[in-house]
Each structure stands twice: as C-alpha cells, then as structure tokens.
C-alpha cells in the first residue's frame, strides 16, 4: 500500500510560482533571449504538444507507438496544402488538422491497437518509414520532393511583436490549452480506467472498461495532438518537405517523451527542449554525436531514472511538499496504480 500525498501549496507559493512561470514564458523567452532562439522555443512548444500526446497513449495508455511522424506530417501538410493551394488563413487550418488527425487516429487505431506490444511498436515504426516516400509519390498534391512553401504568419500590425515572437505566443497559447485538456483527461475516473486497462486487461474488463475502445480513443487523441503540432510546425518553419517527417522524427519524439518522463505531462517540455537543443549542441562538437547522445540518453534514463527527468522532478516536488507540510491530507490506495514510469505518487 502506498500513501498518496496530494500536495497543496500555500497561496503565497502558488502566486510566486505563477509569477515566475509567467515571467519566463511571457517575458524572458520572447523578449529577453536572442531573437533567433525565439522560434526555436516555439518549436520546443510544438514538440511538447506532440510529446504530451505520447504521454497519453504510451505512458497512460500503455501502447508503444512510433508512428507520430505520420500524424505530424498529416497536420503539417493539411496546413500547407490548404494555405498554398486553397488560400486558407493558416490559423483556420489548425482545427482542420486536428480533426483530420483525430479521425485518422481512430481509423488507424482500431486495426493497429489489435497488435500486441512489440508488434505495435514494429508496425508503427515501419509506418513512419513509409511517410516520406508516400508524400513524394503524391507530388501533385504535396509538391513532391520540393515541398510546399507555407510562409510564416505575420504578426498583427497592432501588436509590437516580430513574426517569430508572434508565432511563439500562438504556440504558447495552443500548448497551454492542450496541456489543460490533457490534465483534465488524466484526472479522476478516466485516468484510473486508463491505467487499469493498461496494467491489467482483466481488471480493466471487470471494471467495465472497454479496453479496445478506450485505447483507440487515447490513440486518436494523441494523433490529434501530433496533428496540431504539425500545423504549428509548418507555420514556424514556413516550409514543409517530405524528408522532415521520417523515422528520426518519430524516434526523436519518443526520446523526448522518455527523457521527460513517459507519464509526466510537465516533463514534456523538458523532453522537448532536450530533443530540440541537444542535436544542435552535439553537432557543434561532432556531427555524429547527436544520435549517440539520444541513444545514450534513452538507455541512461531507463536505467538510472526510469520516470524521466519530469517524473523525477515530480517525485522530488511531492517529497518536498511532504517535508514542508504542504499537503492536503493522506489517502491510501492499492499499490497497483503505478505508472509505467514508476512514479508512485499523484503529481500535483
């Protein structure tokens, strides 16, 4: 039996945290740091969105899927095609991407999730591999190898922001919304149902959970997140081309999810920063170092801190709250509600 400690921060601390977060995200990043880094941070937010999707389907849903590149591509190309070929307003394409990805997720999810663990990973990995060739094949639609030039959305005239700051705020807003949505999905009975279905099929069935549908719904949700990420990605980069959406994208997102903490939504941003900046730093040293660091990070994380950096952070946070007396009161639960990453306590 493990005691579940629900941290409850005093008002003063909460206020202080909010101020610090606001300062960092709303001021420091867009205005203080060098401007070429701003769009990189926008990309970080986009990766974080995709990673939250992975948290949902793999961390809590228990399905290891390596096909995210496909859905990111779906989102990116939806935006690109609608903007370039049909003259749509780029922001309007985001809901379309979301919807299409969600539907595609359902369609793919039903057959795919019938595959058991390892085979699902294998199947979705191969799916990722087929994305660039398929995109190139339908070149009438997708612009083939040349890709499509989406252009960067311009900041509204009345705001004192340059284009990269503007897109950063757009991404921040959408990421915040999606983060809250994910939190809500993962609260209460739905979370218990997910974890039960993930950890023990029999228990899940007894609890009245239709595991297949639940997992497929989760998969569809994660696809939606990937699709939205794709749309925003197209807008940040201003350009889509087939070779971007390859296996390495899927694997990088996977690395980000694991390093951040597979069940840690807060860790998603850490994982996203990892996969955005590490390759840049690594290739400054040596062009082949990036993969080595990714691979090493995966292995080291699992051996040393299976819960990932985010998961570890959450555990430390909870421990600290316990020590400082910032708790709601103790609740006991059966030890069965362990997350895949190993976190034994409910995050705040």
């Amino acid at each position, binding site marked *: 039996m493990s005691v579940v400690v629900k941290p409850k921060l005093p008002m003063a601390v909460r206020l202080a945290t909010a101020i610090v977060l606001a300062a960092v995200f709303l001021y420091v990043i867009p205005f203080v740091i060098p401007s070429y880094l701003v769009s990189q941070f926008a990309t970080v937010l986009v990766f974080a969105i995709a990673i939250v999707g992975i948290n949902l389907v793999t961390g809590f849903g228990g399905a290891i899927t*390596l096909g995210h590149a496909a859905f990111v591509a779906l989102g990116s190309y939806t935006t690109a095609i609608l903007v370039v070929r049909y003259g749509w307003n780029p922001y309007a394409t985001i809901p379309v991407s979301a919807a299409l990805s969600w539907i595609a997720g359902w369609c793919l999810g039903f057959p795919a999730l019938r595959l058991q663990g390892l085979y699902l990973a294998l199947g979705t990995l191969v799916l990722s591999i*087929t994305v660039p060739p398929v995109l190139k094949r339908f070149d009438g639609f997708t612009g083939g190898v040349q890709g499509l030039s989406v252009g960067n959305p311009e900041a509204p005239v009345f705001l004192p922001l340059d284009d990269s700051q503007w897109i950063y705020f757009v991404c921040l807003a959408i990421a915040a919304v999606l983060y809250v949505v994910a939190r809500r999905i993962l609260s209460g009975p739905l979370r218990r149902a997910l974890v039960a279905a993930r950890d023990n099929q029999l228990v899940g069935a007894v609890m009245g959970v239709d595991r297949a549908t639940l997992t497929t719904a989760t998969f569809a949700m994660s696809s939606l997140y990937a699709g939205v990420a794709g749309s925003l990605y197209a807008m940040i980069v201003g350009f889509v081309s087939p070779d971007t959406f390859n296996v390495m994208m899927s694997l990088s997102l996977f690395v980000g999810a694991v390093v951040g903490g597979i069940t840690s939504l807060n860790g998603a941003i850490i994982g996203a920063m990892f996969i955005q900046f590490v390759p840049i730093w690594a290739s400054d040293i040596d062009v*082949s170092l990036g993969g080595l660091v990714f691979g090493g990070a*995966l292995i080291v*994380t699992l051996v040393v801190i299976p819960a990932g950096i985010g998961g570890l952070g959450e555990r430390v946070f909870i421990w600290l709250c316990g020590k400082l007396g910032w708790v709601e009161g103790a609740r006991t639960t059966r030890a069965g509600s362990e997350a895949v990453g190993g976190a034994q306590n409910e995050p705040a």
Partner: protein
Amino acid sequence: MNLFASQIVDGLADGAIYASLALALVFSYRSTGIVNFAQGEMAMLSAYLVWQLMAWGMPLVPAALVSIVVSFIAGALLYATIVKPLSHASLLTVVSVLIGLYLALNSLAGFLWTYTIKALPSLFPKAHLQLGSFTVSAETAGIIAVVGVVLLLLYLLFETTKVGLAMRGAASTPDSAILVGVSVPVMLLIGWGIAAALGALSGILVAPRVFLNPTMMFGVIIYAFAAATLGGFDSVVGAVVGGLLVGVVENLVGTYIPWIGPDLKIIVALVLIFGTLLVKPDGLFGRKKVVRL
C-alpha cells in the same frame, strides 16, 4: 532470359539477404521474446569491421570470417550485458533500450568512419554464369549459394547435434530445459551470438550492392522485419521462406507496378507486416503464442 525470370532470381538474391537478417531476428527472439531493433545496425558495424580490417591490410575473405566471429562474440556480450538484465523489465524499457542502441550504434559508425560512403568489395567476381538458358551474375548466384550453405549448416547444427537440440529445448520450454541439465543462459548466449553472426553475413553481402555507409542496413532491416513477421518470429523456416518471398515480391512490385516503383516499394513491407499481424499474427510458420507483452 526474360525480365520476369531475372526479376525472380534477383528477388531471391535480395530475399536471401533478407532471410539471413530475418533469421538473426528470429534467433534473438526465440526464448527471449525480444525483437532486436538494433540488429541491422550491428550488421552494419560488422560490415565496417571488414572494411577496417581490409584497410589494415587483411584480404577480404579472412576479414569477413574474422568479422563474423567477432560479431558472434559481440552478440553474446550484448545478451549478457544488456538483454539478460532486461529480462524482467517492462516492454517500454526493452523497446527504449533497443532503440537507444540503434541510435547509438548508427552514430558510432558515423563517428568512427564518417558518413562518406565507402566501397566494400564483393565476395564474388564480376562475372556471369550460364546455367542452361539463364544468365545470372556471379554475385546473385553467390549470395543465394552462400546463404544456402549457411542454412544447411544451421540445419545440421539444430537437427543433429546435442547443442542444437538443447538450444531448441531452451527456446521451447526453458523451465524443462533446466530440469534436464541444460544451461539456459548459455544457450541464449549462443543464440544471440549466432544472431549477430548472421547479421554480419547479411551486412557483408549487402555492402557491395549499396555501398558502405551508416544507413546502409536501414532498407534491409525493414524487409527483414517484414520477413520475420510474415514467417513467424519464432520460426527458422518462416524467416527463410518469408525472406525469399519478401525479396521476390519487392522486386516484382517495384518492376511491374510503375505507380509504386522503386521509391515506394517500402510500402510492400508495411502491407506485409500489418496484413500478417492482423490476419495471422503468428505468421505463416509461427507456433508459439507471444508471451512477452
């Protein structure tokens, strides 16, 4: 010789290479239940080892043999240091470690040997053979022959030797194998060693065809996955039949379905994998139910 027949023969040669890598996957899978995502990268490193040995003055054939032996040892070491400790870990951990290995090995090759392509000579002369009314390149015939011989040796190992029987027993029912005195860990060590050696063989056969570079095995491993899935991950026969089938189908589709053509051929692998897993998850020849989830 008409196009169709030559496509079949080429497909068999490619298929033989896929079969040897698929066999490697099967050997890793049996009794550990793990699909070694990094098998292709290990094979790639084996091929690079041959190149390096030749760069240091060794002739091709001895270098190839040395590489195969070293790969065997490396495979056994991989089992002992990484796979065995993971035997009770979650699926996520196993998949992550293997993917991590894939990324790391890929980069390692780039780091040690750069990304510029290199040439690895073929084991076979640049000649053509006349077999009746067929003309076949020495390389194509050679690949099929070499893989055929290796398969024969494996067959003899498993069907006639005590060790081979013990390995099959350990793969079939490890608990019972212990009760007859078999050392299951040793059998698994040998199994992973053989897997790595088979991978090395496939790498050495493929390198002359596609030029040596760190992403060389990428195309091969995907088809090997498809072959092993089609044949059944726990079936040796399945890996071989699967490999040959995948090779032939890939070639035929690439040639005769222009809309797919050589670039989109990879979709064959995807279709085969998903198709098999949904229709007959154990594969054509597979028997065991998957225990590891």
